[in-house]
């Protein structure tokens, strides 16, 4: 693997203009800003509706410096396929194609087109930024909203179903590269996108994105919240390369005992108002699940 990127050698060039319409403290803005540095200039983006649509600017001003087509909600995977097809037809192979979609546009309405593209092995990087809900339309539940979260359409009881494991679904397609990242670890994200660009076929990158208004925490705590998700063992950072699973970055360090021990999930739940109705028994249950999962990790 390449030497890890540091803050000091991360490319200086910015591909996102300041003054976007993203919320103050937006986790997506961090991931997108650093992510585009990894993709670089010679990239064509495909974006279905999401907070990113707004972040990227309203006609006729683009907040991004990369070329992008906005496409319908269900079609990111297929649209990326079309861009690739046109590039092949024009014998151009020096351009990276990337789709950047939200969790709804990926795991819910977009999963058919994404699955089709992955099955065909289309040569592109698919980035799912998972802020765990339909934030752009005002915080409704999505397939990746965690159990118990209050959203505007689970307003009283919270979501009654578990979070959909989209990276596992993508891994089941047998694609060459599946990885999880977090907005709170932008250098790790940068390196993984760089790596994905070098692998042929479909690559899937799933980024955990804290959302201050959607999750209910202060804007200053965005990075802290994403870090807490990793440090409690709730959201693990890993890579699946050619079917082989391995923890990466801070998750790997925790499993190796090099860093601090797992923090209690209670810290994460208590820090967000969306979990305000969760009772202790549920939190204990989740803690048990995490302990069991991590027992396996520690063995390896």
């Amino acid at each position, binding site marked *: 693997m390449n030497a890890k990127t540091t*803050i000091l050698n991360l490319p*200086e060039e910015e591909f996102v*203009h*300041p*003054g976007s319409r993203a919320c103050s403290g937006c986790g997506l803005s961090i991931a997108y800003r650093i992510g585009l540095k990894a993709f670089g200039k010679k990239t064509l983006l495909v974006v279905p509706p999401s907070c990113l649509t707004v972040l990227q600017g*309203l006609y*006729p*001003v683009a907040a991004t410096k990369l070329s992008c087509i906005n496409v319908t909600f269900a079609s990111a995977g297929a649209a990326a396929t079309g861009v690739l097809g046109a590039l092949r037809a024009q014998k151009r192979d020096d351009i990276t194609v990337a789709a950047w979609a939200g969790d709804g546009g990926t795991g819910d309405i977009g999963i058919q087109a994404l699955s089709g593209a992955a099955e065909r092995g289309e040569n592109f990087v698919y980035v799912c930024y998972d802020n765990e809900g339909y934030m752009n339309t005002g915080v409704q539940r999505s397939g990746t909203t965690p159990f118990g979260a209050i959203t505007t359409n689970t307003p009283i009881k919270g979501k009654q179903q578990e979070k959909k494991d989209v990276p596992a679904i993508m891994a089941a397609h047998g694609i060459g590269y599946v990885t999880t990242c977090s907005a709170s670890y932008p*250098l790790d994200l940068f390196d993984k996108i760089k790596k994905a660009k070098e692998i042929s076929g479909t690559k899937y990158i799933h980024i955990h994105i804290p959302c201050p208004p959607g999750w209910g925490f202060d804007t*200053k705590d965005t990075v802290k919240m994403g870090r807490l998700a990793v440090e409690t063992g709730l959201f693990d950072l890993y890579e699946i390369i050619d079917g082989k699973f391995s923890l990466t970055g801070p998750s790997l360090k925790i499993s190796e005992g090099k860093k601090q021990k797992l923090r209690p999930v209670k810290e994460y739940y208590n820090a967000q108002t969306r979990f305000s109705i969760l009772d202790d028994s549920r939190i204990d249950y989740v803690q048990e699940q995490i302990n069991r999962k991590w027992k396996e990790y520690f063995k390896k």
Partner: protein
Amino acid sequence: MGTRECGRFTSHSESGPGDGGRTGSWRVVRPVINLDLCIPAKKKTKACFVCWLYCPDGVITREIPPAIDYEYCKGCGICAEECPAGAIKMVDETSDIKEGGK
């Protein structure tokens, strides 16, 4: 002058800053860097720049010392929260007004 003069017939956006306007006006608190504590400023060498890395809006420079573009800084406070030296303080915007600041 009608919009036909713009010469386009599709929704074709070109890159430019400030799509959301001067988002500096969104701030209720502003980050202020204490150069006595700021690592690169203190060491006069390229170091740290955690604030630059995490700034969602890219309004902090990776310079010695780091500079904040208040025209667009939304005042989220992530830089202050993440600064390992505790060099950035979030200051009430209104106090600035009271002091007749810029």
